[in-house]
């Protein structure tokens, strides 16, 4: 009876491991191995960092150098036009900094980022696949690799977005936007450096570094379920820029 049980457990582990279903789910201490343990639910609220604003995370030390096209877009930008007021989800480099929780699931062929904000899911492919022209999307197409104890993520194939770089400062992003992310562990913290290139709007790459803290045990990710009425309700409180 005991032998059958052990055989069964061994067979289960072999099966799940072979199928790639043995996802890492707990925040164990940072590993010194090549593949860091990034899995778990991470807290990005004010416990971990200041709330985003017009000067956070893009402040005087790292504010992007905009080209003339971007400055022209900024000048005509109308807050009422921001797609967030119609429940369009945030994208990198903003979504990583939104003050909510994020879950990371590591699998052999992919890493999945689930954001509480806007119910967004990003899949980072580790299997070498490349995007096709049909892979344009709001969150772009992400490929990744492990390197020196960090997860490196490169994302492109984004749609044009009038506030795709930063909504607080009305900075757009183009389909040429490329987002480079490096995730690593420092003790119990998860850290990331996000770097953005977009030759259509930025004179040079811009980047910020931030962190998450482990979310409390038992925490359940809540659904965002954006409400269209609540999303647009603030706009009528603002004088219209254009008649």
């Amino acid at each position, binding site marked *: 009876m005991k032998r059958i049980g052990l055989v069964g457990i061994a067979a289960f582990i072999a099966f799940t491991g072979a199928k790639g279903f043995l996802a890492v789910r707990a925040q164990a201490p940072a590993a010194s191995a090549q593949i860091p343990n990034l899995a778990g639910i991470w807290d990005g609220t004010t416990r971990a960092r200041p709330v985003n604003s*017009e000067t956070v995370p893009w402040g005087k030390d790292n504010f992007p150098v905009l080209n003339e096209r971007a400055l022209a877009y900024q000048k005509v*930008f109308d807050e009422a036009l921001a797609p*967030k007021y119609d429940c369009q989800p945030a994208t990198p480099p903003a979504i990583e900094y939104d003050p909510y929780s994020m879950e990371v699931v590591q699998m052999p062929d992919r890493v999945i980022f689930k954001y509480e904000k806007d119910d967004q899911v990003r899949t980072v492919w580790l299997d070498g696949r490349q995007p096709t022209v049909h892979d344009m999307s709001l969150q772009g197409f992400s490929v990744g690799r492990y390197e020196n104890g960090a997860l490196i993520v490169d994302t492109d194939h984004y749609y044009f977005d009038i506030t795709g770089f930063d909504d607080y400062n009305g900075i757009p992003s183009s389909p040429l936007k490329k987002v480079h992310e490096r995730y690593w562990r420092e003790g119990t913290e998860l850290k990331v450096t996000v770097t953005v290139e977009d030759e259509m709007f930025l004179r040079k790459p811009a980047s910020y570094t931030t962190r998450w803290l482990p979310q409390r045990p038992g925490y359940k990710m809540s659904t*965002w379920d954006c*409400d269209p009425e609540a999303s647009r*309700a*603030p706009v009528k409180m603002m004088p219209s820029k254009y008649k």
Partner: protein
Amino acid sequence: MNAHRWTLTVGLALAAAVVMKTAPALAHHSSAPFYDATKKVEAQGPVTKFLFKNPHSFLYFQAPDEKGQAVEWQIELGPAASLTRTGWTPETLKAGTIIKASGQPSRAEGSHGMCCAKITRADGSPIVAGGRVTEEQQPPR
């Protein structure tokens, strides 16, 4: 129903100086286009609707405007995801509950909105039992 409205001008120059000093060039501020941080309004009346939602919750209540006419006020609150952390639920404020609120007035002509409001029950007690009476932080957008 008691209600009154006032405007604070003390600190206007100081607030403007702080904004000019800290804001990056060409910044589109998160709350400034919607609400005037240099002014304050106060009103009291019965809740008509509580929208406990993401990305922002909204509390609607009826109270007189500056001309004494009954209007529906709209208070912008944080997202449900954040309010939940402080004990709020969709049932926290039922229609008919009298509340008192003071906060920054909305800018659009003819609008009756508030943000960053301090909200209490009619007797001045916290909305959530055991909670604190503080000004709501401007929710992230």
